[in-house]
């Protein structure tokens, strides 16, 4: 795994100490926290390309807050969300985290953003309050008082290989992703699965992250190699453009594609033109069958009324992770009785909490969960396989 782009510790100390000095010089009236409220700091991308996840994530988090407050809040106190921008540079986000802790007196921080911001937040928070990283993630980080709710590559690959690769006897793999830590970490995991299944990798390439890419050259190259399946770790707009280009080149007759971050909004962008023989493996699809998902959908409609269908269309796995994050916070604090690292980490082991797809269990600070494999049908997901209780591979100590 490559080192994420974060400031060095020394730079970082500089940032945080100047922020602290700044706060000390201008004491805020808000510093007197309302003891009756339990504040949850929530980082969502408010600007930039990733902000397509904002509306859905926010709505889900607000729904979860209503539910938690209806059930008596956290430790008897009403929950209030304090939002911060997760779509900024890592150092900027770190400053916001310090402000949230010192100024807003939040007692837990959750976040849905990229890995660079995550590393910066981990170093800024230093385990003083629990930090919950909610979206899809690479495995491997065990910082103190830090918890991961998203699907890991291991969990995605388990259902991809069990339900798609092995039954269809897919042997040659082409890996294409954006050039940053998550895609490379996912592919490291995938390579283990490929080796186990007796397949071979016929191509692996990465395109720059954060700049628009064209994929004509890559699709042409893939076509000439003619693999059985393409494992796609492109994100956002690149994921859309790649799959649309692939569709346009008429290569979707035989070659299968699997996206590792292909959720409702990305599929809407890809459109029916480009989604033939395209699969996705995640912990949530809005079309997944089953009672818990339906309950979530009903609660969502009840809260948002008329705007609900339009808003619900923007909710994918990344959105419902923010829903789970609030419920996780409740369960964690209820069991630990404090926000201290030692108490929380101990309490997290085996902790059961509510998610949009029913109760989930945390083990080694990652989640054991139900995984789904879906095939794209036009612009909707059709779930073709379900695997319950998929364990995570974390070895984090508690």
């Amino acid at each position, binding site marked *: 795994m490559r080192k994420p782009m974060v400031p060095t510790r020394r730079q970082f100390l500089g940032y945080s100490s100047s922020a602290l000095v700044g706060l000390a010089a201008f004491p805020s009236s808000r510093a007197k926290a309302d003891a009756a409220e339990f504040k949850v700091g929530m980082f969502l991308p408010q600007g930039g390309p990733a902000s397509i996840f904002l509306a859905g994530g926010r709505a889900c988090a607000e729904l979860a807050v209503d539910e938690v407050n209806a059930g008596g809040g956290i430790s008897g106190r009403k929950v209030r969300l304090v939002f911060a921008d997760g779509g900024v540079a890592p150092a900027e986000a770190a400053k916001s985290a310090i402000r949230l802790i010192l100024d807003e007196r939040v007692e837990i921080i959750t976040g849905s953003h990229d890995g660079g911001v995550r590393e910066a937040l981990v170093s800024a928070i230093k385990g003083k309050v629990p930090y919950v990283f909610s979206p899809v993630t690479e495995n491997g980080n065990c910082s103190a008082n830090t918890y991961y709710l998203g699907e890991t590559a291991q969990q995605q690959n388990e259902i991809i290989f069990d339900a798609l690769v092995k039954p269809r006897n897919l042997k040659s793999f082409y890996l294409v992703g954006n050039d940053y830590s998550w895609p490379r970490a996912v592919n490291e995991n995938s390579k283990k699965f490929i080796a186990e299944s007796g397949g071979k990798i016929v191509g692996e390439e990465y395109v720059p992250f954060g700049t628009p*890419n064209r994929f004509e050259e890559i699709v042409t190259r893939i076509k000439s190699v003619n693999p059985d399946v393409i494992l796609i770790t492109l994100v956002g707009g690149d994921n859309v453009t790649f799959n*649309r280009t692939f569709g346009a*080149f008429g290569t979707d007759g035989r070659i299968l594609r699997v996206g590792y971050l292909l959720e409702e909004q990305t599929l809407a962008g890809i459109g029916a033109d480009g989604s033939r023989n395209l699969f996705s493996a995640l912990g949530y699809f809005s079309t997944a069958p089953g009672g818990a998902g339906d309950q979530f959908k009903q609660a969502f409609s009840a809260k948002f009324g008329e705007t609900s269908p339009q808003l619900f269309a923007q909710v994918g796995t990344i959105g419902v992770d923010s829903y789970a994050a609030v419920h996780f916070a409740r369960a964690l604090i209820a069991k630990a009785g404090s926000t201290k690292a030692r108490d929380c980490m101990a309490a997290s082991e085996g902790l059961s909490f509510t998610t949009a797809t029913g109760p989930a269990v945390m083990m080694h600070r990652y989640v054991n969960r139900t995984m789904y494999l879906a095939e794209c049908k036009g612009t909707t997901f059709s779930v073709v396989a379900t695997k319950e209780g998929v364990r995570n591979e974390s070895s984090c100590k508690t």
Partner: protein
Amino acid sequence: MQDLIAAQTINLIYAVTLLAVLSLGLAVIFGLLGVLNLAHGEFIMLGAYCAVVVRQNGWPFLTAIPLAILVCGSIGYVIEVLIMRRLYRRTFDTLVATWGLSLLLRKSAEAVFGLTYRSVETPLPGTIDVFGVPYPAYRLAVIGLGATAIFVLAIWYGNSRTGLRIRAMTGNPELAQSLGLSVKRLAAGTFVTGTCLAALSGVMIAPLVPVFPYMGLDYVLRTFFVIVVGGLGSVIGLVYGALAIGGLDSAVSAFSNGTYGYLSVIVLAIAFLWLRPRGIHVRG
């Protein structure tokens, strides 16, 4: 192998044409008015949304063209009269103003269309065989129409009365004014033309990429590189710039990978800014 080279060659031609068309609007406004329009990408974005809107209403794809001209032409005109007209020759102020405009347009699109990806169904599905290589029909149409549009624009700019007067205005504005040319009117016309060209290129790329409010950011930098490398104020410079930037990117991407392709583009652009800031083709 032969097929691969043929296909990658068509990809290169496509990349160059697409980039040239995307850069036209920026080149017109920067080259002729000296304004680096940082909202160029947002006009492309608005053009793409015009395609989304007509498709949503079930109208033919081509109706997006008059709609884009109407919408972006009017916005361009209002902006020119209210803001830009007062700022020509104040380079820094025009940067700030167009940057602010880009934010405004992006946020307005966000308010109207929401922060979601939209896709526009391709108007020409399927592939056509070119030298034995199946190539997407719509992309071939982009190559054909784009090259024609650039050619026609070059001829028009070089020979038409308006083209000559625009060149007179940019080359020697004092003299142009004393000959009775209304620099105000020509400047407004030029700005509106630039925004309309951006919008039309937006319509063109709508079926190729995800349409969303932030997409404009994707295009400003690369089209700016085209102008830096190509040189200002002529269609031929634009073509050289697109050939250099788009061609290099496509060739390197075809035979190594996308990261090196992007890297080579950045290195080329920096080299030009440093060593030959006036670009390949210097006018006059």
